[in-house]
């Protein structure tokens, strides 16, 4: 199992676009322009962040169609609230908060979460490392099958690297609840992955 997980860690074939000083300056320019209702500048911000926002929506909802809707809603919300962005946090973090709120808001309104037309594992790219045992895909699928509360915490904390304080703040829960949900998620994932490995 250890080997399986080590392989999965190495097999992540996705590299985040490095944020350079130049791109940050460019981003600030777009933000300023977008705050004056420049939709072309907002389009540039969209292109810069869409993959990350969509990835978050996809992992949180586990549903491609819902993730697409959430991504669109999140950017529309971001546009409406753009003047509230004061640069106190990174724009990507602020945008993530908007996206998380959008996902939670939509999930509260509907029970579409249960109506999973396409599983996340069907659309995420397959691991590229030769000889990989498929562990990454197993982990993706196992996360996808977690109950929503545990999944949201695990995705934000373990995948996106937010602290428990940030995670609980985004999800509107207590930090203790976030820790408890993470523990639950790890236990469920362990059970599932060990069963599959056995």
């Amino acid at each position: 199992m250890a080997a399986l997980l080590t392989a999965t860690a190495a097999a992540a074939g996705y590299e985040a676009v490095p944020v350079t000083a130049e791109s940050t300056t460019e981003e600030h320019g777009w933000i300023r322009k977008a705050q004056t209702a420049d939709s072309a500048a907002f389009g540039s911000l969209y292109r810069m962040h869409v993959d990350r926002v969509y990835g978050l929506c996809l992992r949180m909802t586990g549903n491609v169609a819902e993730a697409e809707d959430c991504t669109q809603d999140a950017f529309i919300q971001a546009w409406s609230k753009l003047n509230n962005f004061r640069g106190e946090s990174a724009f990507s973090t602020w945008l993530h908060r908007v996206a998380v709120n959008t996902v939670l808001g939509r999930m509260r309104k509907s029970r579409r979460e249960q109506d999973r037309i396409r599983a996340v594992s069907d659309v995420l790219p397959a691991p590229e490392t030769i000889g990989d045992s498929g562990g990454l895909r197993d982990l993706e699928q196992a996360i996808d099958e977690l109950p929503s509360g545990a999944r949201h915490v695990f995705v934000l904390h373990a995948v996106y690297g937010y602290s428990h304080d940030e995670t609980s703040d985004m999800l509107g829960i207590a930090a203790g609840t976030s820790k408890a949900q993470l523990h639950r998620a790890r236990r469920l994932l362990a059970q599932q992955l060990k069963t599959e490995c056995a």
Partner: protein
Amino acid sequence: MNETDNNNFDDELMAAAAELATEVTPDRDLWPGIEQALPHPGRPARTVWNSTWAQAAAVLLLVGGSSGVTYLAITEDLSPLPPVAGGPTLVFEPVSGSFGSMYNLGPDYQDARRSLAAKVDEELGRLTAEERNEVQKNIDVIRAAIEEINKALAAEPDNALLQKLLLSTYRDELGLMMRVDKITSAAMRRGDI
């Protein structure tokens, strides 16, 4: 599996999770849908202003329209009036270009409205100055309401409520003109007798 194994597993699980893709490209371009739905920050105030005007216009229409009809009903002894629905059918015809005048009325309605308006203008002369002013005032209220609703629709083209209100206002205008026509015709008949 002992506790050490469990801890190792947990560590590896978290390490593996941290390596998962955080960026996924959507299957389709989501931007066109977003761009189309963007409410422009400069616009909301205008939209609210227009909505407020539309609401005010609706209230004016209701008060003005009903007071006009009431005034006519109490100043003339009328036989039952034909239902408004008996008039030309109102048809919305989308017109290419900006929304301001995107919703126009069908040609049949426009013809009927034009000829009725001309007839009403002519027949208003048969009423007393007081009656004429009162009727004209109510027609003006309805037309002002139509104009305001059209303005509000320009800001919120997909607002079904405004579209419905516009249609209903046009219908009210037509109804009022038909009633004036009937009243003046009845007055003329009585005068002839």
